[in-house]
């Protein structure tokens, strides 16, 4: 393993980005309904 190589982790593939995590509902976004109050 080369020096700059990160420690090995088993390959992982997972689903992400539920509505809560989507940029369409992130704080500061006016769209996406139900994203919560802007701060």
């Amino acid at each position, binding site marked *: *393993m080369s020096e700059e*190589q*990160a420690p*090995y*982790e*088993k*390959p*992982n*593939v*997972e*689903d*992400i*980005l539920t509505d809560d995590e989507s940029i369409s509902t992130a704080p500061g976004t006016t769209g996406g309904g139900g994203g919560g109050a802007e701060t």
Partner: protein
Amino acid sequence: MLRREESFTWGRLLWRLGRRPRQALTEAPERPVGAKLEITYACNLRCGFCYTDSPRRTLQRTPELSDDQWREVVRQSLDLGIVEAVVTGGEPLLRKDLTLGVVEALAGAGVGITLNTNGWFVDEEAARRLGALSGVTAHVSIDGARPWLHDTSRGVPGSWRRAIEGVDRLLSTGVGVCAVHVVTPDNAASVPDFLEQMWTLGVPWVRVTPVVETGAAARGGNWRISRPALRRVVEEFEARRGTAMRITLQAGTGGGVGLQGKVAPGSFLVRPNGDVRPDSLRPFTFGNAIRDGVSACWKAIHDGWNDEQIDRWAKSMHGSRDLAESSLVAYLDDEVPVVPGVTGDTGEGSGGRDAPVPAKTPPDPIDPTRDLTAAREKVRGLAHTRRYRHAPLRWTGSRGKRFVRLTTNGRYLQLNESGGAVMDALDGGTLGDAVGLLRDRYGLDESRAREDATAAVRELLGKQVVIAASGSGAGFPEEAGTTDLPGSEPTG
């Protein structure tokens, strides 16, 4: 995930408690949901437990429908509105052009299809034509982790190799594959190794089933296995490998055959000579598809279901063994025509109970360890050289974390660094390339690299990040659902 289909006894109990098994319909549909088409009697193998008794039919050269007649049956079945079909035999690919044409016609109409085959005749052309279709799952029979086990079970030397190579060709063109393992006392001990091989080979779905005791199996033989032991084997595999490979542990004996009740079935079966039955287990005919028309036969099932002789037969089924010990056994005895005016003149000939089933010379036993090692190497060799490509997608991110959007279904995925590396290796590459990459980049030993790369490729395939390089991308049906079609018992 292990899906336990209803056992015979459990299904009967549920029925009595008013909770009908999943397969049962609460009311008879006016139009059929599905059709099971037995394209041919003939088979090139000699399985001693064949539930359709195909070896006997093969030797007797029993006449069957012509290609044009089968195409007419398919046309009429589509007109009736079926949404699901099982194309089977015998070995349907013995009539390859007809069978592929039938599958293409059904798939073109949007019907979900199970093609039962022993894999022997799955050549490049068959795999390519099936891979171009959507909604097709090939159920390929593989009985054991060692060639000798399978070849003696199937009665023909070389049949394990042909089955495995057939599965590989189907996976290479993106066809959904279910490996069907008929478990007997002779091969039960190899089921753990079998599951490992299917995992390595990249098979998405495995169906493990006991012998269905009709046809040749009803003549005798020791077919009984321990279902709890089999369930433990599956659970141990899933604890080790997860549930990315779907495993169905099947009741196998037709489950609710004794649960006939008053509700007509939702599907029908067409025998190779055109005779129409409700399903594989009930040896009663309701006319002939060519002589009477499919619609008239379906109406005969629908209207004539509450027939006294069927009811009497069904009520004699108190346990799965009764299928074989009844005075009327499916595929062994002459079928009984039910409805006057739409009578089945089977023309199949009889003598099923007394007809011997000569086996082809089985291969000589060889050292089990050497046999298993050779099988593992064969499977690994096929799995490691199958080529993949990316599905339509976009991705971004840093080296340590990658974000992927699949443009076909809009799903978002996150991959860690090694996951991204395997994904890159499969853009035109193989599992073998991914193994080499993990080994060289991260200093893994060969065994660990194989383990992790195989699991990663299965994940990437399951989530449709990568697809078979030679496939159309039409995709494996997520819910093939074919075991739900009443009468779609496993291929023999």
